[in-house]
C-alpha cells in the first residue's frame, strides 16, 4: 500500500509528466497474403494524467478497441503500429517507458504490472477451469515479491476491496459459479492486483445489468481516487458521463472531437458527436426522432461497405419524412390499417404520449401467467405471476434485468412455451394454453422481432424469400415480388437488398429485414424482444425511429421488451417492471418513471438515469 501513497504524493506534487502520452498513433492491419496495410487507427493523440479518466467513445469499428489493445501490446500478428510517441510516464522521468519499443518479454512485465487490462466479458477473459482467486494470485506471483501466504491474504484483501462478499469462499470458485457482476469485480481485482498505474478498461460494463453497472463504475472511480489512471473504452455515453473527465470521440479510426467531458457532452462541436448524443433514447426524447440524418450513420457502419450502401442510405424514407415510393397509396390488396395516419411532415412527432387514449381496446391480455423450469438444483420459477394488457396502437414496455423472466414472458405470450398456469387471450379469444393446431391459423396476427435477427433467418434464403415466406400463401408471383419491394421500402431498404443473403447485411439492415418480415403478415401485435439491444447507438436510433413511424402508420401494438430503461422510456406508453419473475411495478410510463414506488424501480431509474439526457448529468464524484 505504501507504493500507492507514494504515487498519490507524486500526483499532488509539482507538474508531473502525464501518465500516458500518445501522439500520432497509427495502427494498421495487413490481411493475410497481402502487402497493403489497411489503416484502422489514424493519427490518434491522447494524454492521460495520473488519477484521471480518459474515455474513448465510438461505435463498433471506430478503432477504439484497437487503440486500447495497442496500449497493452496486444494488437496481434499482422498489425503495424507507429507513433511519434507512445510513453507510459513514470513517477520520475527515469521510469518513463516507451511502449513502442517493448518486445514480447518486456510487455509481459508491463502488462498486469504497470498497466492493468479489464475486458468486456469476464466470462470469456477468465480461465473457466481456474478459481478466480488463483487468477489473481498469478498476477501477484508475477508482479510482486509477496510469498505464498502473503499472496493469499492479499487475494482476499483485493476481492474484499472490489466489494466481493465472502472473499475467502469466492476466491475458491470458478468463473461460472459467480454472477456476472461478481465475475467482473474479480476481473477488476486481478487487473488491480499488480498495482498498475494505468487501467485500460474496454467496455467494462457493457455485459452487465444497469444496477450492477453502477457498482462497477463506482469501483473504477475508487481506483482512480487512489491515483490510478483509467482509460475507459465505451460506446455508452451515460457510462462515460459518469466517470470520465476527458472524452475523445472516435470515428473511422480517427479522433473527431476531444476535450473535457463536460464540454464535449454538453456542448459538442463536431456534428458526429452531436448525432451520437441525440441518438441516446431517454424519457426526454419521447416523441422525437433520434437519428438526425438517416443517411450518414448507416453508411458509417462497418458492415456497410457494400455495393448498394449509398443507394440504400439515400433511399431511407425517414430523411424526407415522407413514405417511400413503394409505400404510397398501396395496391388494393394492401389491407393494412389506416395508412392515412401517416400524413406527417418534416421531422415528425411520433405522438407517443400526446395523443388521446381512444385507441384503447385491449388486443392482448395475459392473466396470472406462471412458468417454472426444472433445473438440476430443483425448479426455477422463471415467471411467477405476470398479468399484462396491451392496448391497440400502444406500446407496452417490459423492463428488467437478465433473469427477470421478461423473455420467458414473451415466449408465453407468443405461444412458444405453454404456461403452467394462467392464460393469454388475443382479441378476446383464447390464445394460450391451446394446442398449436388451434392457434396456427391466427399466428399471423402476432409477429416477432428478436434480438439476433440473423439466427431467425434460414441461412440458405435470400432476403426476398425470407420476407415472402411471411406473406399470405398462394399469391401470384408478381404480387409477391411487389409486396416484398413495398415492405423493404417501408423499412427503409432498397430492392437491391432483396437478392442478398442476410449474412452479408449489416446489423441494422438485418434488423430492418426482420421488421419487414414482421410486417409482412399484417399483424396487430409485434413482440419486440430486445430488438435494438445489439445495435450501435446511432443504428439503434434509426431502428427506434422506424418502429415508432410504423406503429403510428399502421396502428400496430408493440410488446417491447428491453433491459434498457432509456429505450423503454423513449418508446413505451405503459411499462411493466419485472424482477425475479414478478411484476414489481406497472402503469403509465410517465408516472412509473417520474414517481417510482417500488424500491427496485427507484434503483433502476436512478442507475439508468433515464430522466435526463446524459449531457446534463455531469461526472459523479466519489
Amino acid at each position: 500500500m505504501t507504493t500507492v501513497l507514494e504515487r498519490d504524493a507524486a500526483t499532488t506534487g509539482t507538474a508531473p509528466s502525464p501518465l500516458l502520452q500518445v501522439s500520432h498513433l497509427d495502427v494498421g492491419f495487413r490481411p493475410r497474403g497481402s502487402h497493403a496495410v489497411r489503416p484502422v487507427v489514424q493519427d490518434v493523440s491522447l494524454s492521460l494524467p495520473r488519477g484521471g479518466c480518459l474515455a474513448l467513445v465510438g461505435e463498433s469499428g471506430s478503432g477504439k478497441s484497437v487503440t486500447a489493445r495497442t496500449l497493452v501490446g496486444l494488437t496481434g500478428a499482422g498489425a503495424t503500429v507507429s507513433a511519434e510517441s507512445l510513453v507510459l510516464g513514470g513517477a520520475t522521468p527515469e521510469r518513463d517507458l516507451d511502449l513502442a519499443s517493448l518486445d514480447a518479454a518486456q510487455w509481459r512485465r508491463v502488462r498486469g504490472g504497470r498497466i492493468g487490462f479489464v475486458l468486456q466479458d469476464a466470462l470469456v477473459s477468465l480461465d473457466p477451469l481456474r478459481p478466480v482467486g488463483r487468477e489473481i494470485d498469478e498476477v501477484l506471483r508475477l508482479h510482486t515479491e509477496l510469498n505464498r501466504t502473503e499472496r493469499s491474504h492479499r487475494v482476499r484483501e483485493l476481492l474484499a476491496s472490489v466489494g466481493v462478499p465472502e472473499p475467502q469462499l469466492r476466491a475458491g470458485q470458478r468463473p461460472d459459479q459467480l454472477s456476472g457482476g461478481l465475475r467482473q469485480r474479480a476481473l477488476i481485482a486481478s487487473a488491480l492486483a499488480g498495482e498498475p498505474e494505468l487501467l485500460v478498461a474496454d467496455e467494462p460494463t457493457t455485459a452487465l445489468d444497469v444496477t450492477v453497472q453502477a457498482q462497477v463504475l463506482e469501483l473504477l472511480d475508487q481506483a482512480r481516487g487512489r491515483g490510478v489512471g483509467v482509460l475507459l473504452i465505451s460506446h455508452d455515453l451515460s457510462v462515460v458521463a459518469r466517470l470520465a473527465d476527458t472524452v475523445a470521440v472516435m470515428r473511422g479510426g480517427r479522433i473527431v472531437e476531444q476535450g473535457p467531458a463536460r464540454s464535449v457532452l454538453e456542448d459538442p462541436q463536431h456534428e458526429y458527436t452531436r448525432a451520437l448524443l441525440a441518438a441516446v433514447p431517454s424519457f426526454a426524447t419521447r416523441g422525437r426522432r433520434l437519428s438526425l440524418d438517416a443517411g450518414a450513420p448507416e453508411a458509417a457502419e462497418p458492415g456497410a461497405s457494400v455495393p448498394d450502401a449509398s443507394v440504400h442510405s439515400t433511399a431511407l424514407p425517414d430523411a424526407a419524412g415522407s413514405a417511400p415510393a413503394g409505400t404510397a397509396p398501396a395496391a388494393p390488396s394492401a389491407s393494412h390499417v389506416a395508412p392515412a395516419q401517416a400524413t406527417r411532415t418534416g421531422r415528425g412527432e411520433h405522438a407517443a404520449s400526446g395523443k388521446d387514449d381512444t385507441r384503447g381496446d385491449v388486443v392482448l391480455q395475459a392473466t396470472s401467467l406462471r412458468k417454472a423450469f426444472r433445473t438440476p438444483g430443483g425448479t426455477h420459477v422463471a415467471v411467477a405471476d405476470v398479468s399484462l394488457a396491451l392496448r391497440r396502437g400502444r406500446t407496452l414496455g417490459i423492463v428488467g434485468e437478465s433473469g427477470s423472466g421478461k423473455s420467458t414472458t414473451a415466449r408465453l405470450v407468443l405461444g412458444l412455451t405453454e404456461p403452467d398456469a394462467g392464460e393469454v387471450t388475443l382479441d378476446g379469444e383464447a390464445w394460450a394454453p391451446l394446442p398449436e393446431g388451434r392457434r396456427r391459423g391466427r399466428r399471423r396476427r402476432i409477429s416477432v422481432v428478436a434480438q439476433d435477427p440473423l439466427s431467425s433467418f434460414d441461412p440458405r434464403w435470400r432476403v426476398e424469400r425470407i420476407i415472402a415466406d411471411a406473406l399470405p400463401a398462394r399469391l401470384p408471383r408478381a404480387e409477391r415480388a411487389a409486396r416484398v419491394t413495398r415492405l423493404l421500402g417501408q423499412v427503409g431498404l432498397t430492392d437491391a437488398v432483396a437478392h442478398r443473403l442476410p449474412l452479408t447485411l449489416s446489423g441494422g439492415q438485418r434488423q430492418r429485414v426482420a421488421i419487414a418480415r414482421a410486417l409482412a403478415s399484417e399483424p396487430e401485435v409485434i413482440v419486440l424482444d430486445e430488438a435494438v439491444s445489439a445495435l450501435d447507438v446511432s443504428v439503434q436510433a434509426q431502428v427506434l425511429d422506424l418502429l415508432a413511424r410504423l406503429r403510428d402508420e399502421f396502428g400496430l401494438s408493440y410488446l417491447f421488451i428491453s433491459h434498457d430503461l432509456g429505450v423503454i422510456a423513449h418508446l413505451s406508453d405503459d411499462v411493466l417492471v419485472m424482477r425475479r419473475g414478478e411484476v414489481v411495478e406497472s402503469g403509465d410510463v410517465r408516472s412509473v418513471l417520474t414517481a417510482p414506488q417500488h424500491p427496485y424501480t427507484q434503483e433502476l431509474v436512478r442507475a439508468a438515469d433515464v430522466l435526463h439526457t446524459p449531457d446534463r448529468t455531469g461526472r459523479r464524484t466519489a
Partner: protein
Amino acid sequence: MSTDLAPGTQGTPTPGAPTLDSAVAAPSTQALATPEPTLSVQADPSPSGTRNPATARAGALRRLSPGLLLAAVLAALYLLAAVAPGLLATHGASELNLSAALTPPGWAHPFGTDEVGRDLYSRVVYGTRTSLLIGAGAAAVSLSLAVVLGTLAALGPRALAAVVNRVVEVQFAFPTLLLALLLVAITGPSAVAQVFAVAIGTTPGYARMIRGQLLGVRGSGYVEAATLLGHGRGRILLRQVLPNALRPLVAVFALCVGQSIVWASSLAFLGLGVAPPSPEWGALLDAGRAYVVHAPWLTLIPGLVIVVLAVVATTLGRHLQAALDHEEH
C-alpha cells in the same frame, strides 16, 4: 469443375498466377488486397473494369490451391479410367504374357507385371470401375440408411426414436470391419455383399451426425420463426429442417466414397470381396500378397492407388465442405 479450373491451369507454374491476380484486382474492395499484382495487370486496367460482375468468382478462384488442382486432375483421371479404361490401358485386363512374368516396373510395364505376365498398370485401370462402383455404392447405401435412421432418431415419435438410438449405439459399438466381416461371412463374398457390408459398417457414424444436425436445426431460431409465422409442421420439416440439416451431406458423400473404397479393399484383401481374377483393387492386393517378398510392387502399387484415391476424395470433400460453409457464413 473443369470450367473453374481453366483459368488456373494456364498459370500453374507459379502459385499466385497472373490470372488470379487480375481476378482479385477486379473488385475495388479494400478487403481483397492484391498479392503483388503483376505488371501486365497494372498496365492494362480495362479488363478489371469490365469484369466487375464476376466479383463473386474472384473469391472462388483465390481459393484454388495447387493441392486442390492436383486432386481435381487426379479425380478426372480416375473417372476417365472408370468410364473408358480402353483409352488409358496399354494392355488387356487379362492379357497373358508368361515370358514377361513378374517384371518389375519399367518402361514397358510402368507398374510391372504379375506372375502370369499381365500388365499391372492396365489391370489397375480396368479395375477402377468396379472399385469406384463398390465405393460409391457403399457410400450411397450407407448415407441413405444413415438419413433414415438419423431422421427417425431425431424427429420420430419418442418411443421409436429411443429404439433407433439404441440400435445405432449397439451398431456403433462394433468395429466397422468386424461388422462388415460378419455380414460377408453370412452372405458369402460378392461385390453386392461387399457394398452392403461396408455400408452397414459405416452407417452408425453418419446416422449420429445426421441426428445431431437435425436436432440442431430443429431448435434453431429460423425454425421457431417459421412456427411463429403459422407454418405447419410438415412444411417446416420440408422447407427448413431437412434442407438445412442435410446440406453438409454433399461434402460428406465425397469423404464417404474414399473411406468406403478403403474398407471394401480391406474386405477384398481378406478374400471376402470380388473373386481374384477380377482386377478390382482389393482383389489385386489379395493376389499380390503371395509374392510380397519377390514382387512387392504387386501389393504396393494397388495399395498406393487406393491411398491416392482416398486422399483425392478427402481433399475434394474438404474443399466442397469449406465452400459450402463459406457460402453459409
